[in-house]
């Protein structure tokens, strides 16, 4: 029996039983395959190959050696006491996905899917990218496996992430700036899908997050679940217990699904997904799909998405290109409705303040994406302090523990951050020439 109003929010879904290991294609009412028929055979092939690979010891061992010897797994779990000192009585640990090869969690999924692509006999990888991290990871895997690579990137993003464009080109990938629509991540996905419809015989679409049609949401999570498994074991080893909360930023939501998955069936661990609140929910300029609360279909999945009354997608806005996506993975939609995870928006201001604090207190420059999760950790810690649950008098061993997924490093964001904090070199004196003065002027960091 189908629901008569499937495109409205269905909060408070009941769910009994384990949360881990959901296979899709549906997560409660979310997910599915809202795709052109032309691509269904390819999705079936990916699904079949993925199911077989999971059962194949040779595949698992290949994946594990690449994780260990190429990606640099396991990634560290680093306690950050000077950062956490903002709120006494709270210990904060960072899951250091920023230390992976290529600088973010994205490589976990890319290596896995590239192995699958090779098994399927594909010779070309295509990908969308927002911040460029997924594009760089895909270009890296293509170089490693000797495959062709085309990366679609919104023109707006190629400008704010110019460094990553150069990295992809150095790695031998073709970067195609997308000049239609809002020229950001969602439009890059549209272009990648259009490419795939025409090239599916030779090409694997290496989708970079837990969105899209089945099997992508469950498959991408499966490749990232290593984050949560490691983090759980590491926090147990370092503190002797499970954390009180786990924090991750959510655009499409792949790093969050990866770390959440390890803790889904530990009910005492609160899970927080931090969405990009942009310039504020009341401005409409944000990327907080779940917080906005409208369900629909985008890029193959039923989920929460930013849309107007007619169902047209609304352009999202975030200081971080990687969270600038107007929808969210369907499993997150389900975790929200069941109440298992909590989703909150973090504004650009609050995010950048956490970004700066981590730089100054710990000597770690985080990705702006991940800084949303850092801000979420400080916010939750202060909430505990305000409620009197933690204080300077909290005895040692009784502190609250938060694990933050530091999904990426901030090298790519240095110029955005420098503009935000007005740290660019002073404009030369007038005789220095107009061009130099224009180039050096912070051009509205919030644009």
């Amino acid at each position: 029996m189908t629901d008569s109003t499937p495109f409205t929010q269905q909060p408070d879904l009941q769910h009994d039983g384990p949360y881990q290991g959901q296979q899709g294609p549906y997560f409660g009412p979310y997910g599915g395959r809202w795709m052109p028929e032309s691509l269904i055979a390819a999705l079936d092939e990916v699904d079949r190959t993925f199911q077989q690979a999971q059962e194949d010891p040779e595949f698992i061992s290949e994946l594990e050696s690449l994780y260990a010897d190429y990606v640099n797994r396991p990634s560290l779990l680093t306690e950050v006491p000077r950062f956490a000192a903002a709120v006494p009585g709270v210990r904060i640990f960072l899951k250091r996905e920023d230390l992976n090869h290529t600088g973010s969690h994205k490589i976990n999924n890319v290596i896995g899917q590239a192995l699958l692509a090779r098994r399927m006999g594909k010779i070309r990888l295509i990908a969308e990218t927002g911040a460029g991290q997924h594009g760089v990871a895909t270009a890296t895997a293509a170089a490693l496996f000797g495959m062709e690579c085309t990366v679609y990137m919104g023109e707006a993003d190629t400008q704010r992430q110019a460094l990553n464009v150069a990295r992809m080109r150095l790695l031998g990938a073709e970067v195609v700036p997308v000049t239609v629509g809002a020229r950001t991540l969602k439009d890059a996905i549209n272009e990648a899908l259009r490419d795939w419809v025409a090239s599916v015989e030779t090409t694997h679409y290496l989708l970079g997050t837990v969105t899209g049609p089945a099997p992508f949401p469950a498959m991408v999570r499966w490749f990232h679940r290593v984050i949560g498994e490691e983090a759980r074991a590491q926090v147990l080893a370092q503190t002797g217990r499970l954390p009180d909360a786990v924090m991750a930023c959510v655009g499409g939501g792949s790093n969050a699904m990866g770390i959440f998955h390890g803790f889904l069936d530990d009910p005492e661990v609160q899970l927080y997904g931090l969405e990009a609140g942009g310039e504020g929910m009341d401005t409409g300029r944000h990327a907080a799909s779940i917080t906005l609360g409208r369900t629909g279909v985008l890029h193959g999945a039923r989920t929460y998405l930013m849309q107007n009354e007619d169902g047209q997608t609304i352009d999202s806005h975030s200081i971080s290109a990687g969270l600038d996506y107007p929808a969210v993975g369907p499993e997150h939609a389900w975790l929200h409705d069941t109440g298992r995870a909590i989703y909150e928006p973090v504004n650009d201001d609050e995010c950048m303040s956490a970004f700066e604090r981590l730089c100054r207190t710990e000597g770690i420059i985080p990705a702006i994406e991940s800084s949303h999760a850092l801000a979420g950790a400080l916010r939750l810690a202060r909430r505990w302090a305000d409620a009197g649950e933690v204080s300077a008098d909290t005895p040692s061993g009784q502190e609250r523990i938060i694990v933050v997924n530091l999904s990426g490093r901030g090298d790519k964001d240095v110029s955005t951050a420098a503009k935000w904090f007005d740290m660019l070199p002073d404009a030369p004196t007038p005789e220095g020439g107009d061009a130099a003065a224009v180039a050096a002027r912070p051009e509205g960091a919030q644009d």
Partner: protein
Amino acid sequence: MSASTPQDTSRTQDSSVRSLTTEAIERARAAGRTALIGYLPAGYPTVEDSIEAAVELGRNGADVIEIGIPYSDPVMDGPVIQAATSQVLADGFRVDQVFEIVRAVTERTDAAVVVMTYWNLVGRMGVDAFARRLAEAGGAGIVTPDLVPEEAEEWFAASDRYGLDRIFLTAPSSTPERVRLITEVSRGFVYGVSVMGVTGARDQVSNAAESVVAAAHEAGAPRVCVGLGVSRPEHIREIGRYADGAIVGTALVAALRDGGPAAVGRLAADLARGTQREATA
């Protein structure tokens, strides 16, 4: 919610539902013609001119007119249609204006008028409400480029309730099992995608088209029409040898862009020359 529904949802073609699209294609067949199906975007370049263009199309030989609703993320469309529909959206087009267009075109032509839409626009309005309003406007059905039968339970129910045709796509990559499923749930005609790709005029009709049509016919589809890359009368003549109809989109949109509704009429008349089937023994 659906307790008052008079009939059960049927996943098979329900012969009790009158199919306006079927009638239009069968009229063409009876007249010795390949059915001509023309696509135009709703509201392009204005609502008024999109009506005039569709009327020109209907009066110059189209048996079925497909009115596409502009959508923000049209993954099956190539650059010409994308450029047209994004202009319409930028000008503030609202989805429910499509009903006014369908009504006007239905009243002024003999063609069956179907809507082509990406599914989120239907879902947002509510599948039942959309279907009811389309039927009230005289519409014949919906072409659904990003809806596969597995996700279409609600549409099956609504299309049966309001007597609308459901035109699903089949592709060169569709397995025989999928072609059977698509054939079984479609009503009006099966939309045979001629090529692995997005919309856009091509010099030649793909070789894959004939086998796509043959597979659907073998699966029992009474009417299979070929779209994607069809832009000239000779394409239609060729398609007419094995298919029941030919679908032209991008070429008409380009004509409308460059020459207004009158150019659509001229191109439709030219395309119609290709619909006449050679007499067979």
